[in-house]
């Protein structure tokens, strides 16, 4: 009889008597049917899309298990459930759809996982002010679908669109594939409603900008559940674009493509999609373009006259750097395939460790960061392939997205740790930021001190003030000891 799985990272658990008492009181708040300690529910909320979770799953273990799962339905319920947990000093882990790639939902100290997916309503679409207020547990694709039905777009299309929640985007400062026009989620968010560990509910105002002191609601952006729980947000929306124009080009060198992008961003254009692939990824994604040149794909959308003007400026910039036009069909192909990550499941079953590492660079080190990270990753024994592309661009720089595939043999965990060690070291040495949009989670907490310097101490002080009993998502963002993973 096998009735329980081994946990590899469980730091501690809460006294079961306390958990049972909490379950009883929670049932009075959300109903008994929305409180569960059954194995199926504990297993399903114990991990996210962190590759380590899949490695351990194959070995019959899980990172850590919660002791209870609750499903609140509204902000008031979240408040009462959190206050109750705070009173009893029970650890709380917020959970959306589990698409995070860095162990951000692993309940290291057990306790209660708050599955937020019942909070899934679009509360209001404000057409006059181009705003939508939406609860944090709504699935991204269903959010966009409801907006489209009303004639709008949310402008946020992460690759995880169909498997992530609005709250997850806000909690880890997500980026969508159309971010160059619409912005990252922190640019799209106008205000947040959130609950602090003691149950305090607070929200910001839906005005364009303020000079009324720091925006305390915005402080929850990127906090990954360590400071409180985001329960809803008011986000910017846009009328569905009048026109969309697609274009693809190739460059002899990656640097030429980067320079072309820098020029058209400097000129003030804001195409929605800008993706520049190295020659390997060009060959992988667009075989007919070969694997010797670097492909740039562009999607420009909005009012027709603006689109035409932007296309004209962009054309001048890319031609000035020696681009060859590749038509538009490659962009259509990308649109069709942009949510397909099936290769990860298939390669894993063949023994591979595949991961993606996204970092934030400025123009002066955008290319050198790519070279340095690639060299470092290829230096790890077992690595078969390292490739990269730039997927989000700004006047000041670009996000670099590295993909690495290795066949390390037996000890996949050791290999996984090694590739991250060398990649983070290379990234930080170049002066780039260690994450652009995947966030920190559990794993990247190991480099938070190097990333933030004394800023991490500021974050710790804020954490201590807002969450004195350390109940919120323990061990994430580098806040709290994660001894078993550090070993």
């Amino acid at each position, binding site marked *: 009889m096998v009735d329980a799985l081994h946990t590899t990272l469980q730091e501690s658990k809460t006294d079961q008597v306390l958990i049972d008492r909490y379950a009883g009181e929670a049932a009075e708040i959300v109903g008994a049917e929305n409180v569960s300690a059954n194995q199926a529910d504990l297993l399903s909320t114990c991990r996210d899309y962190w590759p380590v979770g899949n490695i351990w799953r194959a070995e019959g273990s899980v990172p850590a298990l919660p002791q209870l799962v609750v499903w609140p339905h509204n902000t008031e319920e979240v408040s009462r459930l959190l206050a109750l947990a705070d009173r009893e000093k029970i650890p709380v882990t917020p959970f959306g759809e589990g698409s995070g790639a860095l162990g951000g939902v692993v309940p290291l100290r057990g306790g209660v996982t708050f599955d937020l997916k019942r909070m899934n309503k679009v509360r209001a679409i404000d057409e006059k002010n181009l705003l939508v207020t939406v609860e944090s547990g709504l699935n991204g694709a269903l959010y966009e679908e409801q907006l489209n039905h009303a004639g709008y777009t949310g402008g946020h299309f992460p690759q995880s669109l169909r498997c992530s929640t609005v709250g997850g985007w806000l909690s880890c400062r997500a980026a969508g594939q159309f971010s160059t026009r619409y912005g990252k989620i922190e640019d799209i968010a106008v205000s947040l409603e959130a609950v602090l560990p003691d149950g305090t509910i607070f929200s910001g105002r839906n005005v364009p900008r303020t000079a009324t002191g720091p925006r305390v609601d915005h402080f929850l952006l990127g906090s990954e559940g360590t400071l409180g729980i985001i329960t809803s947000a008011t986000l910017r929306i846009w009328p569905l674009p009048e026109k969309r124009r697609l274009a693809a080009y190739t460059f002899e060198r990656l640097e030429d493509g980067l320079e072309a992008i820098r020029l058209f961003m400097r000129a003030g254009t804001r195409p929605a999609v800008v993706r520049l692939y190295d020659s390997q990824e060009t060959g992988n994604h667009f075989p007919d373009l070969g694997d010797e040149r670097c492909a740039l794909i562009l999607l420009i959308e909005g009012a027709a006259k603006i689109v035409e003007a932007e296309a004209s400026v962009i054309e001048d910039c890319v031609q000035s750097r020696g681009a060859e036009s590749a038509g538009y069909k490659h962009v259509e192909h990308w649109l069709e395939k942009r949510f397909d*990550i099936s290769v990860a499941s298939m390669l894993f079953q063949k023994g591979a460790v595949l991961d993606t590492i996204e970092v934030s660079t400025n123009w002066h080190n955008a290319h050198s960061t790519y070279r340095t990270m690639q060299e470092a990753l290829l230096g790890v024994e077992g690595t078969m392939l390292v490739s990269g592309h730039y997927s989000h661009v700004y006047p000041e720089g670009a996000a670099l997205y590295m993909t690495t595939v290795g066949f390390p043999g037996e000890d996949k965990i050791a290999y996984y740790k090694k590739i991250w060690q060398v990649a983070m070291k290379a990234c930080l040495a170049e002066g780039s930021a260690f994450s652009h949009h995947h966030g920190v989670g559990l794993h990247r907490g190991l480099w938070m001190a190097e990333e933030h310097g004394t800023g991490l101490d500021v974050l710790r002080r804020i954490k201590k003030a807002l969450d004195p009993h350390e109940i919120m998502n323990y061990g994430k963002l580098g806040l709290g000891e994660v001894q078993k993973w550090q070993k």
Partner: protein
Amino acid sequence: MAEVNMEQLLNCALCPNMCRCECPILQVTGREAVAPAGKARITALVRENQLDWDEDMLEAASNCLGCRGCTIHCPFPELNLCDELLYSRMTAKAEGISLPFLDPYLNNLRKYSSPYGQKTGAVVTSGCEAEVLFFNGCTSLANNPASIEATRSLLDRAKVSYKMIEEDCCGYPAQVWGEQELARQLAAENRRKFAAGGASTLVTNCPECWLTFTQRYPDLGQELPLEIIDGPAYFLRLIREGYLEPKKNPNGGDLEIISYHDPCIWARTAEKVDEPREILHMVPGLKVEEPFSSGSCTRCCGGGSMFQLSFPQIASAIARRRLEEFSKEAQIVTACPFCREGLLQEGRQVLELVDLLERSFK
């Protein structure tokens, strides 16, 4: 008997699930364990002997409507998670794990050959020798005898040589509830009855029965010696060949706005999305208006996999969600007794295609 395809099951278990937005159960419950990958992970752990079934895990793995909504965005063309879960659940019984709340329905199946209990006797067998055997299915028999009368009337109008028989359940409920042997017994009995009747064609309006006859019976070693035709295709054939000619607006006057709810199995498994619409377009006085999602991207009514019996609250919630996709003014028409029942129970008037068609003659 089809086997679980572990490679495909693991593809799903290892995936973050781009299909999550199209899993109606996940969307109404918010429960991670019933997400496609949640169910695949639990099932894979059991199949790999890392965990034994327990009642809770079996209950989670049973939370699948068989609607195949998860295939809309699935990047694995060979993956049929609904089937993988169905085959996996059958192993639980061998381990002595079952879901006690299903016992009354399984007892009904054993005692009355219907999950709903004693049959109402709505069907009068007819026709000694006939070319077509018309199979109504338990759900029409239990919930909508009027549709059977409409079917009979249409067949009579078309002068079809047909018969209806005292039916036993097709066995689908037994399969989705993990009772493979009971399913096999029902299949064998049906095969015997069908073969004895001399008909060359079997027609059914029930998608679950159609799926069972065409795809499950061969797995059970009970392939039927008849041509099996789905109701929408059959009635369309009768209209095209001039045996049925819809006469007038079924509403009796004003133009009627009709929205067709695509049953999941007809739309995604049988790929029958054009046939019912073609029928609707042949009925005078109808204006067909599509709901928010339709065709192969239809969304389930909550009635798949016998959910109206096994998980009635979830079925109701899914039906309510689906109804939000229809305009208030439209008359909803569907071609599945489960869909009709599920949507009807949430307060909307719903007609089956045969009901609408028959009304066009009156």
